[in-house]
């Protein structure tokens, strides 16, 4: 549809613009407002009137200004050039904006979402005359060293291929294929548009079975996330939501990371932009920027673009999933998105539900998280989208609406604990509030790929952590001396576990990321210390002796001293530990 004037502005109230004289505007249509041409979206139609949410600052917009309709819903462009780019909430490349408006972002700038001049080397993967359908791969482009970009037939198009471009360099605007469909011949380019609010179709939803290995011990070992799963990370300010998200974005074993900075600090995005290109992915030895897409709507950028940024991110993720990749989305933070909904709803004078949030908040949260999953794609491959959503509850109080509603729609919960953060115990994921429903799904993977003892070790240590809480309550009342050695040993082991295992230093070259194998080895060592130590205490060994074992210092420092590649060092440490424990027990056996 051609661009046309669909109405004129009647009222301006912050990011909400009311228009009248509406002719044929379409619901969710992308529009441009005023002569400065700021972008917006139609969100309500009524009689001759419409409500438009505007993605840019509305200063200077006056009643009577024209509203231009584009005839298209709010869409993203999907094609080569996405990887390594930083976009704003409505997929405008920030680097291109910088070239036009320099340091401070101006309004009404329109730049192509994907570069129209970059030439990509296309290698065909089908041939003329083939019957093709939506999701099928037409050819590939090596987008970065790491990512082979599959050029897909857009969903909904099927027919026989009447033309396919030969190998060569093309821009995204060049026609690379023609498909003879029932409705006539369709021309295909290397990019396609897709409305951001509509999930991309796939053939089938598959059960989850593989963990998303994040390299963070407290997550992988205690509260694992599956590929295609969803998780919420709630925490008050300063508890390390962003730190946790950054650590996962750096080290998890997804193929592609979509990092959505939704209403957060500008410097945090700059941090990612400066740090990621320098970091090397341990699995591929390539720069992390080779697999990362950033979407930045910082807290001082317009509110409604914040609302859109979440959908922009998830649509891009689905597109790469359709190519058979495992994608992880970091959404930091979904609370800002919910607040954007609240602000827009308030400006539209809708009836509020809890704490001023609109009544449709839970529906929107559910729709977003349901776009995650492990899918069989239309092209017959397998790919997944995992969503890791941070939540910023006001006052750190998890009973507020966004946290509560999010909890209903995710299956994994990493609650950040203020007490732990205050003690600078990072990641501050509390082991009492947090849970993961994916354990049963992925247990098989750990037992098969890493070691059969994993599940048993894990439940033993979780059990100890629960026991410790009860013991600590006693200690708080009567002091530690009142407990017998066997119970004080539980507290001791938990302290060792927290220091040596749960705490992880994101800035230490060795500790920042642990392979599944290292995690399971470390866990096993600590569980061995517990099992054998508890036996020894029964035989009369004192707690002081167990605590003073020299080898214990090596166990506590193993996270720093043993690198992921040196698994044989663990064997040595394990032998030394067993021997020390043997000696300790032997003294008492003689008596």
């Amino acid at each position, binding site marked *: 549809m051609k661009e046309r004037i669909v109405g004129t502005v009647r009222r*301006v109230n912050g990011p909400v613009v009311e228009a009248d004289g509406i002719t044929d505007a379409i619901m969710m249509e992308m529009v441009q407002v005023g002569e400065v041409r700021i972008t917006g979206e139609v969100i309500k139609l009524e009689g001759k009137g419409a409500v438009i949410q505007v993605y840019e600052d509305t*200063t200077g917009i006056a009643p009577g200004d024209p509203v231009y309709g584009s005839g298209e819903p709010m869409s993203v462009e999907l094609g080569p050039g996405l990887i390594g780019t930083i976009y704003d909430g409505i997929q405008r490349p920030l680097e291109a904006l910088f070239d036009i408006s320099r340091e401070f972002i101006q309004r009404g700038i329109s730049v192509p979402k994907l570069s129209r001049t970059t030439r990509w080397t296309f290698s065909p993967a089908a041939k003329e005359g083939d019957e093709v359908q939506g999701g099928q791969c037409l050819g590939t482009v090596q987008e970065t060293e790491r990512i082979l970009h599959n050029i897909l037939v857009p969903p909904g198009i099927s027919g026989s291929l009447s033309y396919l471009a030969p190998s060569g360099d093309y821009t995204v605007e060049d026609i690379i294929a023609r498909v003879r469909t029932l409705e006539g011949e369709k021309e295909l380019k290397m990019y396609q548009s897709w409305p951001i609010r509509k999930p991309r179709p796939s053939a089938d939803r598959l059960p989850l079975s593989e963990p998303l290995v994040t390299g963070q011990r407290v997550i992988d070992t205690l509260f694992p996330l599956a590929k295609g799963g969803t998780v919420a990370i709630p925490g*008050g300010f*300063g508890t390390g939501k962003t730190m946790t998200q950054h650590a996962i974005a750096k080290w998890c074993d997804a193929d592609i990371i979509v990092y959505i900075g939704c209403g957060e600090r500008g410097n945090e995005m700059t941090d990612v932009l400066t740090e990621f290109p320098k970091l090397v992915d341990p699995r591929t030895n390539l720069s992390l920027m080779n697999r990362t897409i950033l979407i930045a709507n910082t807290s001082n950028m317009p509110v409604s673009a914040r609302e859109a940024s979440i959908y922009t991110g998830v649509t891009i993720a689905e597109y790469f999933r359709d190519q058979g990749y495992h994608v992880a989305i970091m959404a930091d933070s979904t609370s800002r998105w919910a607040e954007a909904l609240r602000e827009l709803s308030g400006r539209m004078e809708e009836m509020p539900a809890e704490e001023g949030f609109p009544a449709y908040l839970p529906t929107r949260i559910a729709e977003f998280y349901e776009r995650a999953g492990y899918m069989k794609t239309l092209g017959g491959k397998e790919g997944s989208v995992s969503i890791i959503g941070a939540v910023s509850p006001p006052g750190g109080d998890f009973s507020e609406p966004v946290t509560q509603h999010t909890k209903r729609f995710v299956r994994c919960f990493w609650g950040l604990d203020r007490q732990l953060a205050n003690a600078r115990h990072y990641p501050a994921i509390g082991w009492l509030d947090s849970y993961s429903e994916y354990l049963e799904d992925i247990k098989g993977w750990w037992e098969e790929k890493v070691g059969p003892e994993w599940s048993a070790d894990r439940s033993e240590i979780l059990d100890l952590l629960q026991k410790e809480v009860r013991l600590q309550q006693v200690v708080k009342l009567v002091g530690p001396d009142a407990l017998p050695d066997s119970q004080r040993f539980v507290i001791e082991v938990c302290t060792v576990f927290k220091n040596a295992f749960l705490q992880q230093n994101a800035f230490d070259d060795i500790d920042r990321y642990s392979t599944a194998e290292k995690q399971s080895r470390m866990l096993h060592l600590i569980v061995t210390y517990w099992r054998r130590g508890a036996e020894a205490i029964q035989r009369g060994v004192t707690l002081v002796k167990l605590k003073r074992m020299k080898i214990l210092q090596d166990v506590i420092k193993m996270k*720093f001293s043993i690198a992921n590649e040196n698994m044989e060092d663990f064997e040595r440490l394990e032998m030394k530990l067993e021997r020390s424990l043997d000696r300790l027990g032997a003294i008492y056996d003689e008596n």
Partner: protein
Amino acid sequence: MMKTDIQRNLAAGREYLGVDKIDGPLLFVKNTHPVGYRELVECVDSQGELRLGMVLDSSRDVVVVQVFSGTSGLSMPGTRVRFRGRPHTLPVSKTMLGRVFNGLGQPSDGGLAPMGEQDMDVNGRPINPTAREYPRDFIQTGISVIDGMNTLIRGQKLPIFSGNGLPHNELAAQITRQAKIKGAEGNFAVVFAAMGVKNDVARFFIRSFEESGVLENVALFLSLADDPSIERLITPRSALTLAEHLAFDEGMHVLVILTDMSNYCESLREISTLRGEIPSRKGYPGYLYSDLAEIYERSGMLKGFPGSITQLPILTMPNDDISHPIPDLSGYITEGQIVFEREMYGRGIYPPVAGLPSLSRLMKDGIGEGMTRDDHPHLSSQLFAAYSYVKDVRNLASVIGEEELTPLDHQYMEFGEFFERKFVNQGHHENRSIEETLDRGWEALSLLPAEELHRVTQDELDTYYGRIADRRGSYGDGTGERD
């Protein structure tokens, strides 16, 4: 020029006599030409006095105007209103340093308005994240608990969460006096914005700037407690507009002190309630977060520019409650926070900075080898861990009595006492070097057995643990240089 622009410029000359409704600081004007959102408004009352305002809501039927200097004295038929067709701008220049302005940026020291080099929109524009330079230059404030545990970085926004009656003004003044960057001197400026603070407080700051001889490098924007509350909404924006000019056009390092942000938020709530908006928590508008972000995010450094803006907002937590919306939302935007604790103040500790909830997010990249000292990251992490354990031990001691504690816990108690009295506590004019701060930290840790220190490396233990007495020579008797 487009046709609409010409029309708008012509319309900007129109003057409307009489308004249709006055409600608090809001004017309602009907039957106007199309007026742009956030346009600058000039109102002239019957005495001929000019007041500035801004369009808050514009529609075909009625335009809502917020008058910054209040509406008292305005009459419905006698008020003349003119819409200027452009947003509120502030003429800014370097000559504004050393001067005093009201919240709108008009001189209130009796002098002439300075010649502006540039007219800048007070609302600013969001900085493109790709243009930002990640801040990593350590600022030495000479205050141990900040330098050692919550390091301030150039370009950071680090608020002080305080309470009524706590010495936040003294601390802000001390930071201004002592702040310096290793190896970089000179070209600095202070922009001071006071929102609804008492006359005495403003005078305290002026005197303090005078005493340290920096007054000619300070621009003051004062909207005091007896000025119209609505003016507070524009005060930080005027101040930051000047700060941006100084930092990014003049290449200066600007420290912006905003006090008190709580008063700013109160004014925002006032306007929001008057407009009948749906409130979120505690009656504050739903957009409080976005509004605060518009202020706090105007700080940092830009690639290729020598200057920087460091923000030090001060806010008093209502009823010392850190989960109140104002400190809570601020904490989500700023890069850390310095939190004051009344209990420490009561025990005579200055600055009464609560060890655990205070945080500097940018510290990780600004400390360590080549910036402060190689042991700094681990040392501060260890101090936090040990001090957090002290808090547990103190709770335990209050239940079971100090005598019942284990010998190790006794050591922790001793450590806690030393840490608060010798590390955190310092004089109003005591300026400690970073080396001294770190050594004091080690001195405190040396009261604990070495096996307890899991977060420092063996090398660091060998170099510093229990050895501070030997190292003393480097800076005298350990009381630090006094000025």
